[in-house]
Each structure stands twice: as structure tokens, then as C-alpha cells.
């Protein structure tokens, strides 16, 4: 038992040690510092894997104390999965950076900061007390500032690092407030102790007309929104691309997921806070839609990936909003590895595009990316419509029914299935529009892939949920996120008609061209206005910039009035 505690402490501190060694003893030894950094990260990754393996065998959580008053690590499934995920991503980023950053100045400092950042994230995801969580949460923003601003010759790097820092700081405030509400109410900084007290009597204390779990849940949700770039707090995310590519990868694959982690860490609080979950659902939905729309109009690969991350984060928060907390963790891991590989490959894509500027004459590319008018499909439209609408619904429902039939009665699962249905149907609809020598074979291939993905995802997410929340927490979270049955059914039916109607409109407009005959130019104007609005990023950043400018002018005038004293 004692050796496990020692390994627990060593795991994150190993990277702190490597950062100190690089900064103080190897500042001019570039190759050696990179080697030390990569080896330390690899060790951390293997130690994390070992700890996860130990938990699977031993099967119980424990808290390891580093300091007397604060500084503790919670070895529970959530911490251990996050440790493996974060250190895994960090290993990839480290190895990639060894060559990618070789011509950059401050090479050794870069590796020291990467090590420090990984260590802090490990502390953050495993903090068992509120002070450790606050320290690590705060420190992530500070170290990220220096990583994003690595190239000090570029004022833009500094500007966007500052945007990130100030958004993070704004997000720190609700977390601080939530922490102090909990500390003052339950007279403890220990998370397990606080959660145990909340379970005993969740609505014992109230403040500002809300029960303490409800108030804390709202505050935590706001903190998560800032970290995970939800709408109105998203302006910094697409501009983090001005940092080095490995930092973008670490940022989009790991750091930005902190919101999803925060929801899961405080799941015992959200069990009693349906209102906060509903808010999270709406904010996540809006973010997912706006992020995806922004992504579509970008002509810069990296910024497009940035908005794609925003959309994915919206979806992740939405999952939390419907009570599917473990799914959010599964999502952030899958998205992390996917987006990490995309970023690390972005440089190659850009290089390739520079070498070969011709757009590949591929039919799929032409249909999806260039959006040239699709030729009439060879599939009969009735068959295509049936496949598009019915097949995803059947596949999704059956797979969930066989894995865990009880879940089908949860509103959160229905909502997620609904989105799965929309996404699947959209993919099939796009396939239907493609021209191919054998459309049935193409559709068959896509359907086969879809079935495999759904079954795999359902199985993995189900067993993942059981691992992460072995007790009945998942059901409680779904119950907390539920709304009135009549309102829910009305909403689902309305949305189903909306989507099907949208597809039908697009289908007929594309195939017969009647829309062009009906439209007298008004639609084009609206379309262009919408495009201009989106291309200016809804003027959110401009608004903040103007507001900041006004405040600075006011501050400056005060200083002049008081003669700088």
C-alpha cells in the first residue's frame, strides 16, 4: 500500500523535477533537455498506466496526502483515466516537438514548460481538496500563457496569449466562489468529505434562494464554460493557433477539455442541480451549432480546427447537460486523440498544399468540400429517404436496447440518440448526393461503417460508464437532467419534424432547382449577411475589444486625475 502512495506522489512530481532540471541545469543543452523531458513524460505515462491497472485489480479509490493542510491526490477512476489520457497526449506532443521545435529559440524552456504544464494538469485532475484544485486550475492558465506566447517576437502571439489568460481568469472566479461556498458551508476542503455531506442532506443549506448544491453547480458550470470555450467565452480558442503547433495540439486535445472534467469531478453536486444541467445543455447546444457553423466558413486549416474544437466542446457540455457525464469523458478522450493527431498533421497538410496547389479532382472532395451542384443520384429518392431517416433510428435504438435496455427510458439517452440519428442521417444524406458508379455499394459501405461505429461506441461507452461510476450515479444524473415528460415529448417531435423538413427542403431544392425559380434575390441577401456575420465571428471579439478600450480610457483618466498616486 505504501509503495502505491509513493508512486502516486512521484508520478506528477517527476515532471516538476524534469522541468526544474532543464531550467536550472540544462538551459543551454538542447538535445539533452529534450531527451530528459521525453523520458520523464514516458515514465509518467507508464506509471499512470500502472496505477490504472492497479485500480482495476484492487478496485478501490483512495486519497494520498502530500502536505499536512492541503495537497492531496484522489486515486479514483476519473483521476486515473485522466492521468493516462493526459500523459499519453503529452508523450505524443513531446515526441513531436523534439524535431518540430528544433529551430525555434528557447527550445529548452519550451520543454520545461511542457513538463510543468503536464504536471499541473495531472495535479488538477486528481486533486482531492479544493485548495489543490484551485492552485492547479489557476496555474494552468499561467503556464499556458507562456506556452502560447513562446515566440516573443510576434506581438500577435502575446495578444492572443493574453486573451486566453484573461478568459481563463474570468472563469477562475466562479470556481473560487463555488469553492468558498462549499468550504464555508461544510467546513472542510476535502472533496470526498464535502460530497459525503451533500449526499446525507443536499438541501440543508440555502443561499440567495438556492440550495447550496444548486448554487455551486451553476458556478461550476460557468467555470467550465470559460475553460471549454462555450459561446461568449470562446473568442480566445481559435486564436490559440498563433502559438506553436505542439501547444495547439496539447491545448485542443487536453487543456480545453477541463470543462468536461470539472462536471465529472463534481458529479455528486450536479446530482441535485437539474437547473444547472439544463443551462449547460442550452449553452452546449448553442456552442455546438455556432462552432460548427464558424468551422464551415474558415479558409485557414488551423483556425477551422479551432472552431471544430469549439463545436466539439459544445457537444461535450451538452452531453453533461443531459446527464451523460461518463460519455463526456469518453468524448473528450476520443476527441483529444483525434484532434491531437489532426493538429500534429496540420503542418504536413499545409506543406503538402504548398507543394501541390491543385485541388485533387476527387468526386467526394468535389461534392462535399467544393459543394458543386450534385448530379442526380442514381438511388431512387424513396429508398434514399427511407434509408436516411429510418436506418439510423433503428440502428441506434437496437444497439442501446441490447446493451442496456433500461437506459432507453432516460431522457438524456433519448436526446443523445436523437443527435446520433441526426448525424447519421446527415452522413447518409450526403452519401446519397454523391455520384458513384455503384450507389448501392457506396451506401452499403457507409451503412456498414455506421452500424459498426454505433455498436462499438455504445458498447464502449456503456462499459466505460460502469467503470467510471460503478454505483447508481449515472441514473441519478440522468434523473437530475430530466424535464417534464410532456414538454420533452413535444420538443423531440418538434425537432424531428424540423430536421426532416429541412432535409426534404434541401433535397427538393437541390434536385429540381425550384428554389432558384421561387427566390427573387432576397434569400441571397440574407445568406450573404449571415456569411458576413459569421466571418466576423458574430462581432463577439470586437465587442469585448471595444469594452476593454473604454475601460482602459476610464482607468487612464482616473490615473491622470489622481496624478498617478
Amino acid at each position, binding site marked *: 500500500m505504501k509503495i502505491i502512495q509513493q508512486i502516486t506522489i512521484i508520478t506528477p512530481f517527476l515532471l516538476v523535477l524534469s522541468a526544474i532540471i532543464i531550467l536550472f541545469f540544462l538551459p543551454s543543452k538542447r538535445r539533452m533537455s529534450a531527451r530528459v523531458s521525453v523520458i520523464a513524460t514516458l515514465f509518467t505515462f507508464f506509471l499512470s498506466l500502472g496505477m490504472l491497472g492497479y485500480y482495476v485489480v484492487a478496485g478501490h479509490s483512495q486519497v494520498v496526502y502530500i502536505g499536512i493542510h492541503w495537497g492531496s491526490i484522489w486515486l479514483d477512476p476519473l483521476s486515473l483515466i485522466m492521468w493516462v489520457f493526459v500523459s499519453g497526449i503529452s508523450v505524443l506532443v513531446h515526441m513531436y516537438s523534439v524535431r518540430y521545435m528544433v529551430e525555434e529559440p528557447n527550445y529548452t524552456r519550451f520543454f520545461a514548460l511542457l513538463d510543468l504544464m503536464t504536471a499541473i494538469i495531472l495535479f488538477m485532475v486528481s486533486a482531492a481538496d479544493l485548495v489543490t484544485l484551485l492552485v492547479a486550475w489557476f496555474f494552468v492558465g499561467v503556464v499556458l500563457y507562456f506556452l502560447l506566447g513562446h515566440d516573443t*517576437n510576434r506581438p500577435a502571439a*502575446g*495578444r492572443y496569449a*493574453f486573451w486566453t489568460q484573461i478568459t481563463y481568469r474570468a472563469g477562475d*472566479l466562479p470556481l473560487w*466562489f463555488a469553492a468558498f461556498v462549499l468550504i464555508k458551508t461544510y467546513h472542510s476542503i476535502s472533496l470526498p468529505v464535502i460530497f459525503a455531506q451533500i449526499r446525507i442532506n443536499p438541501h440543508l443549506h440555502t443561499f440567495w434562494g438556492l440550495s447550496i448544491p444548486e448554487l455551486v453547480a451553476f458556478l461550476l458550470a460557468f467555470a467550465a464554460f470559460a475553460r471549454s470555450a462555450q459561446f461568449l467565452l470562446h473568442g480566445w480558442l481559435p486564436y490559440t493557433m498563433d502559438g506553436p503547433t505542439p501547444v495547439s495540439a496539447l491545448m485542443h486535445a487536453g487543456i480545453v477539455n477541463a470543462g468536461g472534467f470539472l462536471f465529472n469531478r463534481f458529479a455528486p453536486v450536479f446530482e441535485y442541480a437539474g437547473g444547472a444541467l439544463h443551462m449547460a445543455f442550452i449553452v452546449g447546444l448553442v456552442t455546438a451549432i455556432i462552432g460548427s457553423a464558424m468551422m464551415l466558413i474558415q479558409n485557414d486549416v488551423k483556425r477551422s480546427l479551432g472552431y471544430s474544437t469549439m463545436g466539439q466542446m459544445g457537444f461535450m457540455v451538452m452531453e453533461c447537460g443531459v446527464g451523460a457525464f461518463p460519455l463526456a469523458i469518453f468524448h473528450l478522450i476520443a476527441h483529444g486523440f483525434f484532434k491531437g493527431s489532426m493538429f500534429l498533421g496540420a503542418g504536413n497538410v499545409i506543406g503538402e498544399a504548398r507543394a501541390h496547389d491543385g485541388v485533387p479532382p476527387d468526386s467526394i472532395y468535389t461534392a462535399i468540400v467544393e459543394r458543386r451542384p450534385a448530379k442526380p443520384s442514381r438511388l431512387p429518392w424513396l429508398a434514399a429517404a427511407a434509408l436516411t431517416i429510418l436506418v439510423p433510428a433503428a440502428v441506434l435504438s437496437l444497439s442501446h436496447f441490447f446493451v442496456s435496455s433500461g437506459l432507453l427510458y432516460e431522457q438524456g439517452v433519448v436526446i443523445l440518440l436523437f443527435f446520433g440519428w441526426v448525424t447519421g442521417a446527415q452522413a447518409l444524406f450526403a452519401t446519397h448526393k454523391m455520384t458513384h458508379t455503384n450507389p448501392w455499394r457506396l451506401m452499403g459501405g457507409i451503412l456498414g461503417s455506421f452500424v459498426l461505429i454505433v455498436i462499438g461506441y455504445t458498447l464502449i461507452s456503456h462499459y466505460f460508464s460502469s467503470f467510471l461510476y460503478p454505483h447508481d450515479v449515472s441514473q441519478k444524473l440522468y434523473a437530475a437532467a430530466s424535464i417534464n415528460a410532456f414538454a420533452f415529448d413535444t420538443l423531440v417531435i418538434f425537432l424531428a419534424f424540423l430536421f426532416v423538413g429541412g432535409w426534404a427542403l434541401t433535397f427538393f431544392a437541390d434536385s429540381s432547382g425550384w428554389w432558384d425559380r421561387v427566390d427573387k434575390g432576397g434569400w441571397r441577401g440574407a445568406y450573404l449577411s449571415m456569411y458576413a456575420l459569421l466571418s466576423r465571428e458574430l462581432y463577439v471579439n470586437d465587442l469585448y475589444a471595444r469594452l476593454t478600450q473604454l475601460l482602459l480610457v476610464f482607468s487612464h483618466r482616473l490615473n491622470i486625475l489622481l496624478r498617478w498616486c
Partner: protein
Amino acid sequence: MDILVWIMAGTLLPWFPLSWIFNKLLASAPGFWAQALAILVFPQLGLLLLIYSGAWQALPVGLDSNLRGVALFTAVFYAFRAASTREVQVWARLMTTSGLALTWLLHGQNLDPLTLQSFALAWSIPGALMLVWAGLLEQRMGGAYLGLRGGLTTVLPRLSALITLTALAASATPIFPTFFILLHVVKALPLAWIPGGLLVLLLWGWAVGRFLQDLLFGIYRGELLEDLTVGGTWLGGLVLGLFAVGGIFWGGAWIMN
């Protein structure tokens, strides 16, 4: 007599509007060493005066809401003003004033005089260090004004590293003691007042963000400058390192008591 004690204490341990005199006194000290010494000593004198005159003990426990409001306003007001400041000396004074004003909010926490003085000292140390770095910067550049010639990190890497770390210490960044003191101050506030306390944190984040942006980023276009010596850098680093280590060990001792 009482009024005189309050005026002197409010001046030395800054409290708006007497904080204006505190800043004026600091600014009028001859040379940066004298300014650094003054920023360390004045708040200590203010606290000693309060404690040994019995005025501190005479205050209502936890301060009444008006007094608390004035202390919090002082912290917010000076942090807000620091955001638009580009002169390093002025920035250091305003940020330190903002931090020191929070010491008033620790009334009623049953802290012994030594701990209370240590808290005030923890806000003064980054301020004093920053005034020294500003003086050294002024000696090299003719003025410690940021934003005119950016990219100082390329021409003065050692001095700008120390300035950066000191700015972080002044703005309550973990693991410096100021961070833990801020935790303690926020804990001392009634729940409804906590958002006000946290506003200070946001403004410090804004002020330090702008400060570092002007200090670190951009291409330096000017004559070559002589950086701080290696010995001087190690000495400055040692002071900041000890300050940070103190934050970890000392901060933990009282954070939840």
C-alpha cells in the same frame, strides 16, 4: 488623538483616500532603493501603530460593512488603475496598494500580530522587488516605461525574467504567498461579499496580462543594453524562490485554520 492614529494608520497601511498620500510619499522617496525600503516599512509601521495603540482591537469584529467596503474599494480601485499603467514604478505602487488594502479585511481572524505583519510583508516584497527592477531598468533605458520598445526579453533576458516573476508574485499567482493570502482574505469575507473580493483577482489578471504583453512581446528596436549580471540574477531569483517556497510551506500552515 484617535483620529490622528487612524489617519496615520490609513496612510501607512493604505486605505482610500489616504492611500493617495501613501503613494505620494513612496513616489517622493529619493532613488529606487529608498522607495523599495519605504514600501516594506510603511505598512509595518501602520500595523504596529494600529496594534499597539489598541485601535485594531477596537474595531468591530470582521469590520462593519462600511469599513469593509472602503477596504475592498481601495483594492479594486487601485487594481483597476494598474491596468492602464505602463510605467513600472507606478504599476508596482498601485498593485502593492491594492494588495495591502486587503490586510484590513483580515480583522477578526484571530491572527497574532506577527502573522498579520507577515501578511502585509508578503504584499510589500513583490512591490519592493519590482521597484528595484524598475530602477535598474531606468538606469539602462533612461526610463522604466513599457510598451514603447517591446521585446525586452531579447535584449534584457535576465532582468525581464525577474520582472516577469515579480509581476506574477504581485498578482497573487500560485505558489507565491500572495495567492494563499488572497485565499485567506476571501475566506474571511461574508459569502455575499466574495464576488467583490474576486473582482480584485480579475483586475490583477488584467493588469498583469497587459504588463507582460508590453514587457515581453514585440521586436526590440533600440541600442544594445547591458543585462543584469549573473550574480544579480541569481540573487534576485533566490529571493523570489525563497518567497515562493515560503508560500507553499507557510501558506499551508494557516490556510484552513
